[in-house]
Structures are given as structure tokens and as C-alpha cells.
């Protein structure tokens, strides 16, 4: 292989180029990104950047000189617009065509939005988004309305409360975080937000965002109105696959890969955009977590260079979310769990670890300020430990 294009210049794209180099690839290496910035870290955007605790200089994923050492041909601010999986030609918005022998697809995802763009209405995904919301926070909004109580919405709500702003968070589901944590644990997290003064409204959605040039209020599905001049929409993301239309790749809920992260001969995918069968859970998944962007990018880069011998990619997914003074971590998959047990601490103190089981095997662990326990139980999940043995384990 003489030349490789890594398309997507965020966490997965950066770890892919680093891995290709560390694994000995010394040919032409392109890094293509739609943003002009060199790769930066997204988790601080909803926390330290919004709160103002961090200067923007702290979010670069790699120092400039280390980035230069990778000897890349960078095409930043020039998004890929089409691809041909037969010839591996990547066409950029500027018209430039990259003719390469290998491609890593790491184009990530973008935020879902509601309606047409309107002043005072934001989503949060990029550094530019975060800086705009930070400025809006500083301008002293009358009230911050967060639409969607997922993890991004919840972190934005926590950051806004930390600045003393009034916050209303609305969520269509009766139980927030139900999809990832289950109803019971979702309710615990909902109470954390209420205790911190968030006006949390469940079972109600946004029917319309009202305003001429700037948002004035939002109308809810129950007919009520909330006056506001700042709205953050946190209703999930859409994988960036439109540029692959007509490429010959199989696109479903993302770029469809085999168990080894291969999408087509000479093409691998990693991070938020990649869908693959995870043999550990017997489940086809697309994972939007920080840690997966790293581990999948490393795996995909090795797969591209070394072939099938690299084996299947079968991780136990893991994520964390910092809200107020709570560190929430989940490892594994709660999908279809049939057993649940608090194994350390207690819900009242909001310091606990809980495990989830399915068909007699431990499949997930949740921690509230219990990182050590999460990692210990994660190893049990990795080893496909029986539910009985997981319950008997002591850490």
C-alpha cells in the first residue's frame, strides 16, 4: 500500500493516522476534515468550555509539533463529497480528487436539528458550536431551554446550572436515559438534575420553536409555552454518510462493516459512522462513544495494513458523563437486560455500582462515582462471566 486517505479529522481519524504511522506505514497519508481546526477533543465542549474553566488551547488532541511529525497531507476545511469504492477515489468539496490505495472512513456524525435555523437556537457538536453557546451563556439569557435529556443535553444543563442560569430540560420519554441505563437508573439521574434546580419536564416534546429572527418561546406537545431566548437542541446525531451515496458501499445505520471493521476491499471504517457486528454481544451496533472512536480506529488501521489476521473487533463499549459532581460511567450493553443488582454503595448516597445481566451472563456495569468498580466489572463482562459469579465477586 503506497497511499492512504483517512477521511474525518476528529478523534477516530487522528488515532487512525497515528496507528498507521506507528505500524510502519511510510507512504503518502492524507487527513481530510470538514472543519478547519486540527483534531480536538469533544468531551470538554459540553463541560469545561461551556463553563469557561478551560481556555480553548487545552482541547487540542495533539501538540502541533507531534501533529507535524506524522508527516500528513492535510485537507482541513475541505470535506469529502463523494467516493468510489471500486477505484478508491475520494473527491473533496474543492474538486480535488485523492487517488489512493486505502481508505479509512471516520466522518463521524452531526447533530439532529429542529426546524429552520433561528437566532438563539443551537446544537452542540463542534468547537464553534461550544464557543457560540458559551457566548450566549455569558450574555445572560433569561432562561436556557434544553430539548432532549440525553447525555449531551444533561451535561449542558449541568454546565448552565453551574453558572447560575435558570434551566428547563424537556424530554419526550417518561424516563430520561432509559435507552442506555434502564428506567430505574434513569430516574436516579433525573432526580440528580431536579436536586440541582433543573426544571425537568418528562413525557413532553417540543412542538415548535417560536420566533421571527430570534427564539422567543417554545411550544410543547401538551400545548404549554415556555418563554426563552436560548435553546439548546440535544436530540441525538446522524451518521455522516451522505457523501458515500453511490459509492458502492453498503449504508444502513452507518457504514456497514464486517466483524473486522472492513467495509470493502481497501476500505475500513471507525468511530460514530461505523456499524459492525460485535461478536461479544451478538449484536450489530454503531457506537457513539469517545473510547470506541480510539479503539476502533486503532483496529481499523491495523486491519487495513495487516489484513484479516487482525481478527474481529469485539470491544466492551464504555462511556462516561460528568454532571455536577457525579461521574457516571457505563460499560457494556444494557439492551434487553433481565437481571439487575446494586453491588456496591447505595442509591440514596448516589455513590454506587450496579450490574446488568442477560441470559445468565453479566452484560453491563453502571457506576455513579465508582470508577474502580466499573473497571473491575468491565473485566468480568469482557470474560463473559456468569451472572452468579459476577454477583459473588467482591471488589
Amino acid at each position, binding site marked *: 500500500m503506497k497511499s492512504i486517505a483517512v477521511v474525518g479529522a476528529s478523534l477516530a481519524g487522528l488515532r487512525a493516522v497515528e496507528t498507521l504511522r506507528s505500524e510502519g506505514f511510510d507512504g503518502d497519508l492524507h487527513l481530510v476534515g470538514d472543519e478547519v481546526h486540527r483534531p480536538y477533543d469533544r468531551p470538554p465542549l459540553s463541560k469545561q468550555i461551556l463553563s469557561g474553566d478551560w481556555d480553548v488551547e487545552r482541547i487540542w488532541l495533539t501538540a502541533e509539533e507531534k501533529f507535524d511529525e506524522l508527516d500528513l497531507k492535510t485537507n482541513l476545511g475541505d470535506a469529502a463529497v463523494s467516493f468510489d469504492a471500486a477505484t478508491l477515489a475520494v473527491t473533496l468539496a474543492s474538486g480535488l480528487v485523492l487517488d489512493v490505495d486505502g481508505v479509512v472512513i471516520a466522518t463521524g456524525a452531526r447533530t439532529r436539528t429542529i426546524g429552520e435555523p433561528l437566532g438563539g437556537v443551537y446544537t452542540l457538536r463542534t468547537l464553534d458550536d461550544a464557543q457560540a453557546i458559551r457566548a450566549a451563556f455569558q450574555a445572560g439569557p433569561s432562561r436556557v431551554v434544553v430539548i432532549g435529556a440525553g447525555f449531551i443535553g444533561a451535561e449542558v444543563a449541568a454546565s448552565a446550572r453551574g453558572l447560575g442560569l435558570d434551566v428547563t430540560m424537556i424530554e419526550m420519554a417518561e424516563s430520561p436515559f432509559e435507552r442506555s441505563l434502564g428506567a430505574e437508573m434513569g430516574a436516579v439521574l433525573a432526580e440528580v438534575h431536579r436536586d440541582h434546580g433543573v426544571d425537568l419536564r418528562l413525557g413532553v416534546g417540543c412542538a415548535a420553536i417560536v420566533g421571527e429572527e430570534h427564539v422567543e418561546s417554545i411550544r410543547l406537545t401538551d400545548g404549554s409555552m415556555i418563554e426563552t431566548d436560548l435553546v439548546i437542541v440535544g436530540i441525538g446525531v446522524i451518521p455522516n454518510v451522505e457523501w458515500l451515496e453511490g459509492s458502492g458501499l453498503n449504508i444502513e445505520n452507518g457504514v456497514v462493516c464486517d466483524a473486522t471493521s472492513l467495509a470493502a476491499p481497501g476500505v475500513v471504517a471507525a468511530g460514530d459512522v461505523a456499524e459492525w457486528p460485535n461478536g461479544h454481544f451478538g449484536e450489530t451496533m454503531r457506537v457513539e462513544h469517545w473510547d470506541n472512536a480510539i479503539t476502533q480506529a486503532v483496529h481499523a488501521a491495523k486491519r487495513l495494513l495487516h489484513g484479516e489476521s487482525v481478527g474481529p473487533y469485539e470491544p466492551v463499549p*464504555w462511556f462516561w458523563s460528568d454532571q455536577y459532581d457525579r461521574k457516571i460511567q457505563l460499560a457494556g450493553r444494557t439492551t434487553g437486560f433481565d437481571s439487575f443488582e446494586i453491588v456496591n454503595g447505595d442509591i440514596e448516597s448516589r455513590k454506587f455500582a450496579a450490574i446488568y445481566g442477560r441470559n445468565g451472563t453479566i452484560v453491563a456495569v453502571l457506576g455513579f462515582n465508582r*470508577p*474502580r468498580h466499573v473497571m473491575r466489572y468491565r473485566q468480568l463482562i469482557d470474560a463473559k462471566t456468569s451472572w452468579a459469579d459476577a454477583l459473588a465477586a467482591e471488589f
Partner: protein
Amino acid sequence: MSFKVVVDYDLCESNAICMQIAPDVFEVRDDDFLYLLTEAPDEDQRVKVQESVQRCPKQAIAIVDTED
């Protein structure tokens, strides 16, 4: 060439990812703080420590090469 592990404890939030990757070097204890079991691990730990550097969510770990 040998190496030293340096943790920026102001950044560290005890996510314990490093402990999972390199349990002979990193340990998060019951007080939920990270402890280094050795500041100068053996060379055979280098790959694991490098992975810990890469996968630390707070970018709080660094490797410093030292002369033997």
C-alpha cells in the same frame, strides 16, 4: 532507554481506564484516587502505558524517556 510515567493529578479524574490497561502500573483505590504503583516501570510495560496515555479521557498521563 527507560521511561518514567508522569500523571497530572490536576487533570486526572480517576476514570480508571489506565488501571484496566496497565494494572501493574496504575491503581485507583477505594478513595477513588489514582496511585502509581511504580514511577519507572519496566520496559515491557511501555506498550501498555502508551495505550493508557492514548486512551486517558483527560489526557492526564505522559511518558518521559530517561537515560539509563
